[in-house]
């Protein structure tokens, strides 16, 4: 193995920066080549510590490669290929650049060996992903992106405060290692809050449905993959076994499910559901056993696949019809059958149907819960699976592709199968969902700890099928009740939106008035005086100093003009003058000496 080590993120970030320079004919090739290169770099990376750089007093570690980081790096680089393929036909370079920098930053954060590097990439993720929200360019987009950025900046500040506090305590350094979960200090709480904000853990979660529902159709694939899963990785690394995370995760799982059921917008539903899924992972991290951590990683892996697939399906519908609300859709099976099929696979996968990725991944967490004798957590998580199947496995495919056709005529006209690249991307994801579900060693070999879990047992199969089938039965029984209604769910973003407005009023009225007064004073007293002096200096320079210089030159010239008549061209006059002057000089000298 050569000494040259290239960070997989470098392929993505460099590719992003060079993208504007690629000629149009080769753009599609470049768009595919770069994430493939990143995935290849990620795959050939040997475990160990690479890429250390001495900066001032600190050692920055860019490549801490171990099994925990690798599993996240693997799926993140893999999904970047699929997501880029999905958005291959997008002509705006800036969207790809933002997406790749975001993906690269996530990879950087996953492989960061010290907190400073982690923070650098953490912030890079926030600042690049916000563009994926802004680029949708709807009326609501600027505000949504702005709120997203504010929340992430607040989280980042918390994280930085925690890092600095942690590193300044004696005996600890900037190295990114596990915290002492039994002895939580203010520093570790702050770092935890920073991670939880990114992981959309309630009460810090409201940004997620807000922003992910507003993202571009292809940007949302990137959005749903990276931020939350990087937070899960960070929690796995730093806070494995923290007991608080178990109830938090379980509450999250249920919370997300409840709000998802209420949602009308299909992508916001999926976004709320991310909260639910991440809740599983957070609970697993809280459990802290080897199987739990395995489960968290496996679930993250599988979640990226099927959540991506679901976002792709709903994104395809959004892209083709321009609508994402259930109250505007329905009956699209006739127009988009393949999209339906692939979305359905995603839905089944997320519901942990046998033979899909969810079955072999999600259940590991529940099994870990039972194994740790945390029965409340395990049962409640199973309950959340019911809800999952209800809304994502059933509601989403049914109300978009079947059910009552609420489509307006122009929506119906536009609806058709999406372009080949989107279909291919979805097909690849669907294939991977099924592949991971059927051939478990692919996933299990990547997991950090040895896997002693066998998903395909008769008990597990029957338990799962029972739950799913009864959920399906109840869905169809209560179909009328589950009809979509155009509602806005009031969530925890209400306080900070209102609070934000109040703060803005404060800034615009009283503070601005004070600033205006100060500005007037500064203008009248300061600037006017300064510019007056400047003009005076300029005048002085031109008139006085230059006057002296030019005046001197002018005086010399005038003197010369005065003397010119002395030379009239007549040689005898000149000679007379010269001799007279010479004689006078001699007389003076003779008199002096």
């Amino acid at each position, binding site marked *: 193995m050569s000494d040259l080590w290239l960070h997989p993120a470098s392929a993505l970030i460099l590719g992003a920066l060079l993208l504007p320079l690629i000629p149009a004919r080769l753009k599609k090739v470049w768009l595919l080549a770069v994430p493939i290169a990143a995935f290849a770099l990620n795959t050939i990376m040997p475990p160990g510590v690479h890429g250390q750089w001495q900066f001032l007093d600190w050692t920055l570690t860019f490549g801490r490669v171990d099994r925990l980081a690798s599993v996240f790096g693997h799926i993140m680089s893999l999904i970047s290929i699929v997501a880029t393929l999905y958005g291959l036909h997008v002509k705006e370079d800036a969207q790809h650049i933002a997406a790749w920098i975001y993906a690269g930053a996530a990879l950087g954060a996953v492989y960061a060996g010290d907190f400073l590097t982690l923070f650098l990439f953490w912030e890079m993720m926030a600042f690049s992903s916000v563009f994926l929200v802004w680029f949708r360019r709807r009326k609501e987009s600027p505000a949504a992106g702005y709120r997203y950025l504010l929340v992430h900046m607040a989280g980042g500040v918390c994280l930085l405060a925690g890092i600095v506090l942690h590193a300044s305590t004696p005996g600890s350094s900037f190295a990114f290692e596990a915290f002492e979960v039994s002895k939580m200090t203010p520093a570790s709480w702050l770092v935890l809050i920073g991670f939880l904000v990114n992981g959309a853990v309630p009460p810090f979660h409201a940004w997620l449905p807000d922003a992910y529902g507003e993202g571009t159709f292809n940007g949302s694939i990137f959005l749903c993959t990276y931020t939350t899963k990087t937070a899960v990785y960070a929690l796995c690394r730093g806070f494995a076994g923290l007991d608080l995370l178990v109830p938090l995760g379980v509450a999250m799982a249920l919370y997300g499910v409840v709000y998802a059921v209420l949602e009308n917008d299909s992508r916001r539903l999926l976004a709320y559901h991310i909260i639910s899924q991440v809740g599983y992972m957070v609970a697993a991290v809280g459990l802290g056993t080897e199987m739990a951590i395995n489960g968290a990683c496996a679930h993250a892996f599988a979640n990226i696949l099927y959540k991506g697939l679901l976002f792709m399906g709903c994104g395809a519908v959004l892209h083709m019809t321009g609508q994402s609300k259930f109250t505007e859709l329905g009956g699209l099976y006739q127009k988009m059958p393949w999209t339906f099929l692939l979305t359905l696979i995603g839905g089944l996968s997320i519901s942990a149907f046998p033979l899909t990725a969810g079955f072999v991944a999600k259940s590991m967490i529940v099994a870990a819960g039972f194994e740790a004798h945390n029965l409340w957590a395990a049962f409640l998580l199973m309950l959340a699976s019911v809800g999952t199947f209800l809304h994502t496995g059933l509601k989403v495919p049914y109300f978009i592709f079947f059910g009552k056709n609420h489509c307006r005529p122009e929506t119906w006209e536009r609806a058709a199968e999406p372009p080949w690249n989107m279909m291919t991307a979805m097909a690849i994801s669907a294939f991977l969902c099924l592949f991971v579900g059927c051939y478990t060693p692919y996933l299990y070999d990547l997991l950090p700890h040895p896997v002693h879990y066998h998903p395909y047992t008769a008990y597990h199969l029957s338990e799962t099928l029972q739950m799913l089938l009864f959920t399906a039965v109840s869905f169809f029984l209560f179909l009328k009740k589950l009809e979509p209604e155009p509602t806005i769910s009031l969530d925890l973003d209400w306080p900070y939106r209102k609070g934000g407005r109040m703060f803005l009023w404060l800034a615009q009225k009283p503070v601005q008035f004070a600033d205006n007064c100060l500005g007037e004073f500064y203008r009248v007293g300061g600037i006017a005086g*300064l*510019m007056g*002096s*400047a*003009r*005076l*200096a*300029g005048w002085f*320079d031109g008139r006085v*100093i*230059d006057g002296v*210089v*030019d005046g001197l*030159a002018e005086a010399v010239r005038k003197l010369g003009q005065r003397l010119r008549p002395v030379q009239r061209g007549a040689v005898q006059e000149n000679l007379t003058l010269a001799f007279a002057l010479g004689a006078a000089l001699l007389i003076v000298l003779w008199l002096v000496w």
Partner: protein
Amino acid sequence: MPTPFYPSEFPILSALIFSPLAAAVIAVLLRSDRALRWWSFLSTLVIALVSLPLFWQFDARTADFQFREHAAWIPWLKINYTLGVDGISVLLVLLTTLLMPLCVLCSWRYIKARVREFMICLLVMETAMLGVFCALDFILFFVFWEAMLIPMTLLIAVWGGPRKIYAALKFFIYTMAGSVLLLVAIIALYLQVGSFDIRQMMGRPYSENFQCWVFLAFFLSFAIKVPMFPFHTWLPAAHVEAPTAGSVLLAGVLLKMGAYGFLRFCLPITPQATHLFTPWMIALSLIGILYGGLTALAQSDLKKLVAYSSVGHMGFCTLGIFALNKDGLDGAILVMINHGVTTSALFIAVGLLYERLHTRELSQAAGLGKFMPVFITFFGVFCLSSMAFPGTNSFIGEFLVLVGGLAWSPWLALALAPGVVLAAAYMLRLLQKVTWGSTNNPRHNGLQDLELREVAALAPLLVLVFWIGLKPAPIARIMEASVKNLLQQVNGAPAKMVANDPTRDSAGRPNNRASWALAEVLTPNQTP
């Protein structure tokens, strides 16, 4: 010892000095404008590349003059052809050779008439400028000093703006008037010493009276060149009327010659007089800084604004020189280099604007940022550098000058603060207006952004702005020994910090962390 690049005993300095002259001779024979431009560019580029190894070959451990050459020129007058560079002049030589290809590049389309004569003027100027920095014989120095006046006057008078004759004459006569006294001083020194060799004139026990007169004679000549207040009014006129390449050379190199003169002659040859006149020099420098800043703020002509900013910057330079401590001298030399880089870049940028807009009025150029983003990027960086923004090259120089001035007197540092603020004021005003001013000007719509040639003219300077700004240690290393030696010569004692220095502890290290950090950055590596 670095491996030799030049073959041993190869007269590299003579080669560098006279190659442009040879290129000029060949240029006489060329016919087409295109061939002339390419020939000039390639020859100046080759000379620049050949001069680069001076940087690595220079032995920074000694203050002796290196790459010396000696030949008897006019034996009966004891005038010799002696060349040599020390830590200070080698940097200026490199600055000169670097700027020349950029001058040719920025004149590519600017000069349409008499291209051959123009290129010959540029090349002859390069010979003269390099000769000034390398000469170790006073008459040789004086010959080159006067020689550079003529091509510069021609550059202004033939290819200049509306008031070119006025500006060219003013420049020529003003500078020559100063040089006359310089010649008187040279002859006076010769009569005392019996030789024109500069090194032999240093360190002699001249009477204080004699030193004062010689210093004053030197002062007049160099103060006009620098330019110091109140001898500066030729500069705005010359800069405004000169073509871009002329302005670049004027600001980039010629102004440095005045400061170089102070460093090379006034300080080591007349040290007592230097000490005597230091308060006056510092006062004049301070006035120059504040005055230059104020007048720049009042300008609406872009070139005049940058010209007055040069007055301000060179005020920092002379202030650093006459603070007569290590920080001040280090800072002054860095200011010279940085000013050469930054102001040349600004003049090139303004020249590019002029080529497009055919006016230098700020109001006409307002709001260009929307149409010429690449240009504004470059322009913005150079404006930031000109106001000594941290991270850019000028910051290091000005900061050191401030530290040196503080060591001289705390009131001085207090008085300098408005100067720094003024620099920021006029540069930011310029940058803000040009980038974001009102965009209602219909002439802006068809403007072309920078093409490759123009980017190539500005890119090396951009690189230097950040390189010197972030890692000045290599340059500081080169001049270290020469500066120490100069301090020894002027202070008549082993070079150590000025006593009662409030900013340093007993070990001589600066007290506050900022200048400690800076000193760490500037401390040369202790490699043998």
